[in-house]
């Protein structure tokens, strides 16, 4: 009941916001803010009061019938991993509403509806344990995002939105085929249709069949992540999306790809995933270096930041396929920290665009003199992005490298070169925009109260992740342990299911 509300509340609030906008645009904003705020408050309360998870790592689980004929249920569950990602989604959702407050003036109702529906889809993706439901929500988050880019985006919005849509659609079609194939194989061996994660977990599969099915999931997720060479939708989509869209895209939508790899690809197909690990880690390292060089080469502020995502998500991919505790913890931490640091840079990009009506850094330079506070904020997130110890990204990158080093030293060493490259692209961003001589005299307003408030929240979050990462690591630990050692988790689940069925019979 409560987990379903996590999805239903933003979805319903989206409808309400749409209707409310007819009375006043501010109403749509307030409805969105209150809904997301209440949900985040509820989630934090749940987090603080959560009982210790069982051996299988799950904190809460619920199931509703949906299409019983095909064994499709609304099966939702939350463990440390999904809890963290849902919290990140809500936090960035609130920030997105706040940053759109004056930026979005056309169709504010429909805008907020799409924003909230997209968030509902993302939250659902993080909670769904039925593969059919997962796919349904995976599509659900995509369509509203398409509208966000295509309607409220910048110059090239139609091209970028369609490109984003086609890349994601084509790859998720492969995933749908794999999901159906997997369920069919389950049906053949047990005689019962089921799309349930737990039923499909630990299934015996012929190696080449497992490889084929695994690749369907794998491609869908690495396109979303994105990994080189499937990343080319990202710079376009991020650059042309409105600020809130970029924040949600980079902050949470990319994370659904990483989440899928962690939750589905490796647990469902452990052997096939191990076979593909060297390739995946090669793509990861390639992404780290390629993204860094491309980021440096950009003259568009947003496009530069977009390419840094390719580099940062490379660390996540590396951590996932190193597949040990340090690496996974690092990957999770990197996902959360990247959401905030890159989100912060996109916010600055949006604020600059609102004031200067350009993202072209050749027309910026020396802005610190006019906008010292915004400059300080940009500098802060750039420093976070280059992985300075004391901020969240360092914890993630360090743990990923530590884990990858244990797994395969060569990958860790080459990936570490990305830390040098990160300095180059992060600092050139600041140099081209805020440092140097004032390109043209501008008279613009520095940060206002609302802007300062949400940026300060982001800054505090990144510092907290960097200096006291332990609560996050501790939250993720049982989930990570259960992923690494699925045996006891499967056994515990079997026992629980048996007890439940006994209960039901009695």
């Amino acid at each position, binding site marked *: 009941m409560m987990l379903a509300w996590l999805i239903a509340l933003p979805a319903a609030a989206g409808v309400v916001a749409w209707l409310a906008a007819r009375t006043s645009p501010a109403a749509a904003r307030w409805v969105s803010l209150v809904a997301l705020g209440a949900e985040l408050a509820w989630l934090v309360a749940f987090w603080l009061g959560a009982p210790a998870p069982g051996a299988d790592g799950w904190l809460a689980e619920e199931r509703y019938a949906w299409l019983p004929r095909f064994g499709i249920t609304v099966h939702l569950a939350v463990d440390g991993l999904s809890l963290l990602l849902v919290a990140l989604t809500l936090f960035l959702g609130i920030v997105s509403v706040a940053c759109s407050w004056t930026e979005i003036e056309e169709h504010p109702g429909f805008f907020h509806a799409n924003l909230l529906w997209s968030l509902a889809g993302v939250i659902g993706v993080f909670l769904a344990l039925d593969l059919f439901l997962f796919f349904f929500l995976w599509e659900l988050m995509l369509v509203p995002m398409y509208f966000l880019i295509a309607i409220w985006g910048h110059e090239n919005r139609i091209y970028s939105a369609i490109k984003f849509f086609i890349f994601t659609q084509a790859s998720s079609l492969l995933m749908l085929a794999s999901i159906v194939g997997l369920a069919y194989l389950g049906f053949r061996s047990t005689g019962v249709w089921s799309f349930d994660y737990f039923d499909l977990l630990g299934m015996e599969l012929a190696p080449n069949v497992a490889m084929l099915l695994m690749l369907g999931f794998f491609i869908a997720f690495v396109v979303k992540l994105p990994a080189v060479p499937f990343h*080319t939708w990202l710079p376009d989509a991020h650059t042309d999306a409105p600020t809130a869209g970029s924040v949600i895209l980079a902050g949470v939508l990319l994370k659904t790809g990483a989440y899928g790899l962690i939750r589905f690809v490796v647990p469902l197909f452990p052997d096939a995933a191990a076979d593909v690990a060297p390739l995946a880690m090669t793509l990861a390292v390639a992404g780290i270096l390629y993204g860094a060089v491309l980021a440096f080469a950009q003259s568009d502020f947003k496009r530069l930041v977009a390419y840094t995502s390719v580099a940062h998500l490379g660390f996540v991919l590396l951590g996932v396929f190193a597949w040990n505790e340090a690496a996974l913890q690092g990957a999770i931490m990197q996902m959360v920290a990247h959401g905030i640091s890159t989100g912060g840079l996109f916010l600055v990009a949006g604020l600059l665009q609102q004031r200067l009506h350009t993202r072209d850094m050749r027309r910026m330079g020396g802005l610190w003199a006019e906008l010292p506070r915004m400059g300080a904020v940009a500098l802060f997130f750039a*420093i976070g992005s280059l992985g300075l110890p004391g901020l969240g990204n360092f914890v993630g990158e360090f*743990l990923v490298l*530590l884990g990858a080093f244990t797994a395969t030293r060569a990958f860790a060493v080459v990936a570490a070169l990305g830390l040098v490259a990160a*300095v180059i692209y992060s600092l050139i961003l600041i140099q081209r925009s805020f440092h*140097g001589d004032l390109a043209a005299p501008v008279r613009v307003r520095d940060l206002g109260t609302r802007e300062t408030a949400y940026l300060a929240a982001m800054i505090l979050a990144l510092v907290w992740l960097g200096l006291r990462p*332990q609560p996050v690591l501790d939250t993720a630990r049982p989930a990570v342990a259960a992923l690494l050692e699925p045996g006891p988790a499967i056994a515990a689940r079997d026992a629980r299911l048996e007890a439940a069925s006994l209960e039901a019979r009695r």
Partner: protein
Amino acid sequence: MIEWLWLVPLLPLAGSVVLMASRGEAPHSTVSAIGVGSVGLAAMLAIAIAAEFLGGVDAAASYTVGLGGWIAVGELSFGYSLSLDALSLVMMLVVTVVGFLIHLYSIVYMGEDEGYARFFAYMNLFMAAMLVLVLADNLLLLYLGWEGVGLCSYLLIGFWYRDPANGYAARKAFVVTRAGDTAMLIGLILLATELGTLHVDTALARAAEQWPPGSGIAVAAAALLLAGAVGKSAQLPLHTWLPDAMAGPTPVSALIHAATMVTAGMYLVARTHALFVLAPPVQLAVAVIGAASLLLAALAALGQSDIKRILAYSTMSQIGYMFLALGVGAWSAAVFHFMTHAFFKALLFLAAGALILALHHEQNIFRMGGLRRRMPGVFWAFLIGAGALAAVPLVTAGFYSKEQILTAAWSAERGGTWLWLAGLVAAFLTSVYIFRAVFIVFFGPPAARPHAEPRRLALFIPLAALSVLSVIGGFVETPPLLGRITWFSDLVGSALPAAPPHELAPGVEARLALAAAAAALGGIAVAWWLFLPRPERTRERIAERERGSPVYPALASAFGFDRLYDAVFVRPFLGLARALRGEPVDRLYDGLVWLLRASWQGAGATQTGRLRWYAAGMLAGGVIVIGIAVLA
């Protein structure tokens, strides 16, 4: 008091946070009070802690103060714990005391700057990071401080952000040192995965147990840490950032790029000395890198005409001495030279800063001149600093520390004649280059009209205090011939193994000391002969003659490392970025789109509406199908 150790880094950190939060709105006096006061309190606390440590029950002990955990994953955990032993005590004292004096000086130097609060916010942040670096009891926390000082170095080199050249220098410093830092991080990961901890003492003890001396893994670990040390301490081959770092305000050069941060490499090697002992080839590399750096930098300093660049190369050269000492196992001598160097080099920079300020930001020594009469206080301060740098015998602190290093280079088991000779030649060159500056800047006819020497207490106190320290700072340790005082090595000896007792015949020892003294005094004499402006040989003539010399281009460009790196790293990277800017991967997908469009157009072209084409197509299809059916 020792239980308050955590306050030492936290006070400047708090100062920095408050200054940042004030968003440039606090009045000048408040900024000074917070910026300088927080460091002053930290210095006072450090002195009180030192008094307790020295008078304590057992000076050999080390104290640990825990502040909770930072990162714990699996078997590994890294906490916020600080530890104090004799080595970190010396570092902490020098950092806080010299740091406080430089902060005080900055009140005057930066007084007119629009970024006054930002300056002190960065400086305080630097102090906090530097203190974490020297007090950390595990290497990951040390790395936090290590990267933190690197960040502050970047921020302060590029403090005057309007000039793109400053931004370039700042980024260059960050990128070059990051290259070393990344190697160091891999070294830390190697240590953590192999030894299961990064707690310094535990890790070193385990390494000594698990790894035989000279084993590959010990060599790899030590070499990776050395890469970090070389970058931070501006030694060959990662030294190119330091001269450019002089773009920052002069107090920054004094604090970060002379007295404290650049010596962090020395501290790292000393802190993990047991690891270097396990890796003899790497320890030899430390000595050779030190010797090469000190020679190269001393030569390069001769070719500079910017007073701050002279001092920058001098810093690189003096840190070379520290590396030389570390490489031959004279741990305590390295730390001793760090201390005296911090005093006299900070003094030189602050005196140079006073000149620069009085001359409207003129830094070219050939446009100064005759300042002895007009700025007597600054003259004496600079002279004392120059004397200590040149190691004028008996009366300067630099003499005692440098003499100890040269003796060790000659006599230590890992030393050798060549290392000693390099040190001796560089000692001579040091005298020449610094007195070249002294003679050209302060003697001869006046070249420019300076402002009156500022009479501000905040300027006088640091110069006076550092002058005194540059003279008496060496008396805590004297060679056997001169009283054999061993306070310093006794103290540091509780944290670092004593240098192997070198039993030298008294005659040899005296000759070594004489050679060092002769090098110092000979250098001054040569400088007097070559560079003292006289009526018949003006500064312009001296400059002209220098430029005409065949070795001048090599010296002035410090042997062309910048050009080399530009060709090997910078330009290929820029070329790669240019080549990839258009996103070649996307052309792949464009190709796919083109293919789809072409086949769609191709298929569309067959729909002509002409009956005979359709009939022909049907006929051909039918023939093919029947043909296949028949033949198959």
